[in-house]
């Protein structure tokens, strides 16, 4: 019995590094945010006690509700845009072409460029009085408004620009895992390299592609610098509302509620993904 006790103790001790790490660095902030969002915990002052007032404000005030939709719009659209750009690039980097090494280095540049800098790049390029509008003006052409515009086109371009290299890296890895023979088989059967890419490589790399898409989507729900600097004046994404409420108005409860709603949205998307992929495996697994 003493031995059994010792064994269970050592088991717990062995679990501490892994589970403990998760609890301390992931569990506790999440728990604090959840508690904060219902008024049970707050930063600086005393907690007001249990209340759903923050969620009510967040989900009834049109400013914040528009912010939530806008955040989802930005994330979805920029993710799809970067996927659209990343796919041809992954196809391209598998081929050999002159200047490949240079290209392989250059396309990763946005990975190390902070969002603020990306925003300023977009600003200097396409803002009123920026490089492109001036060049167009000289040619007697108009230039569409891409900064502070209703559709947030500049923001989408900036966000997609930031996430393309990450997508290419993850998707490229999944693509590289597709056996060479399978692609060669497709080619001998009459598929051009582009057809082999679309009909064979892409479907086989689909798990990697969806994973990359999800990661970029979830990451982009927290995008702050780019929409804050070059987005439309209304609506503002939740990230900007969170910053303003936290650091300018000291409304931490509202911030926690917004954070919880965003996390919940991301979790739902993830759950849907697992459900779908599980379904897909079953469907093909059953066969006839």
């Amino acid at each position: 019995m003493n031995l059994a006790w010792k064994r269970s103790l050592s088991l717990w001790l062995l679990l501490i590094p892994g589970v403990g790490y998760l609890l301390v660095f992931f569990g506790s902030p999440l728990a604090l945010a959840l508690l904060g969002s219902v008024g049970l915990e707050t930063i600086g002052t005393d907690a007001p006690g249990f209340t759903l007032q923050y969620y009510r404000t967040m989900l009834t005030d049109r400013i914040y509700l528009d912010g939530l939709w806008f955040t989802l719009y930005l994330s979805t659209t920029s993710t799809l845009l970067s996927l659209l750009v990343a796919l041809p690039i992954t196809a391209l980097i598998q081929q050999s072409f002159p200047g490949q090494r240079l290209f392989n280095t250059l396309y990763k540049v946005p990975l190390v460029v902070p969002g603020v800098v990306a925003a300023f790049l977009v600003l200097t390029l396409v803002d009123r009085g920026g490089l492109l509008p001036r060049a167009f003006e000289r040619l007697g052409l108009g230039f569409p408004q891409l900064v502070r515009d209703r559709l947030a086109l500049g923001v989408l371009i900036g966000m997609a620009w930031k996430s393309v290299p990450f997508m290419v890296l993850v998707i490229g890895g999944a693509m590289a895992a597709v056996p060479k023979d399978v692609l060669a088989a497709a080619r001998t059967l009459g598929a051009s390299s582009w057809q082999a890419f679309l009909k064979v490589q892409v479907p086989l790399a689909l798990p990697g592609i969806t994973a990359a898409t999800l990661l970029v989507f979830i990451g982009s729900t927290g995008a702050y610098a780019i929409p804050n600097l070059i987005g439309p004046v209304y609506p503002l994404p939740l990230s900007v509302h969170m910053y303003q409420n936290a650091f300018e108005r000291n409304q931490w409860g509202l911030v926690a509620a917004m954070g919880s709603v965003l996390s919940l949205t991301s979790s739902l998307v993830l759950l849907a993904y697992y459900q779908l992929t599980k379904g897909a495996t079953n469907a093909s697994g059953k066969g006839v």
Partner: protein
Amino acid sequence: MADDLEVRGAIKRYGAVTALGGVSLRVEQGEFLTLLGPSGCGKSTLLGLIAGSLEPDAGTIQIGGRRVDILPSERRNIGMVFQSYALFPHLSVQENVAFGLRMRRVTETDIKRRVADALEMVGLSALSSRFPRQLSGGQQQRVALARALVIEPAVLLLDEPLSNLDARLREQLRDELRGLQSRLRTTSVYVTHDQAEALALSDRIAVMNGGRIIEVGSPLELYRTPKYRFTAEFLGNTNLIRAHAENAQLHLPWNERLPWHQTSSRVLLSIRPEDIGISSDPGGAGLIESSVFLGAWVEYHVRIGAQRLRVHVAGGGSSLLRSGDAVRLHLPLQLHTVLEDDRVQVPTSPADRVLA
């Protein structure tokens, strides 16, 4: 649909390593030719060049008289079967087989008919809507074969297609392959390192080593009368005996002389173990060192003078000789000589080797 295939002076280098050093080869229309050789001999590289997955550094490849080495894979009209099967895991069996037809924009009704025919041909009609991972290795390779054949390719390329299968299945599939080939007469190039497969399937075999073709011939020619030592040793077992000729007599390394008519003074004999007779003889010069019973035949290791010979005795009735028994050996009447490999002629004009 079948066409002839001609490779001329193909060279392929990887940096400092020459994988293929100027290979020329002709495969006649409807012929089944095997590239046989140890791993690293260049046989898969040659196949890659024909398939278009590799680009030659020099040389040309023609199919049906049309130059294809400048064309991408998909425009060479070839079918290919891989060691790894290389089926599309996301497509059902019938969609795998239909793939090439869809790429060729064949009408849906024709696709249906031809896919059904192809699956029928390999005996997999019942499994048409399964997915590859639900099939055994042998079934997968049959699908791959159907997939490659359904497009009626000008040339069928097979890259060690049986190597991943277990022994029994390998033999079974080998026989099926031979049956198919004799029916369809598709021009085929088959890569293997397994001599039994090569002998069983091929119209002709090209033996390769060190990035070159050593010699080309029918299985019978290459087995019975190989020109080079490498062929003799790689294709089956053989006894190599150095001897010298003098005054119309051949001096064997033990005290035996045979009548000889050839002029060269030094010769290398290649005698297959099953071509040597053996009889128990207390006064015989041979001494049995060991014997191994292998079922269909018995393998004896016999010392005679300074030479050790391997002798195979087949058939029932013969009682087993024991280690230490003295024996007499009976060499065949027709002795076959081979050339050392360093005397393999590198063709200066592509046509040379083709005719060799």
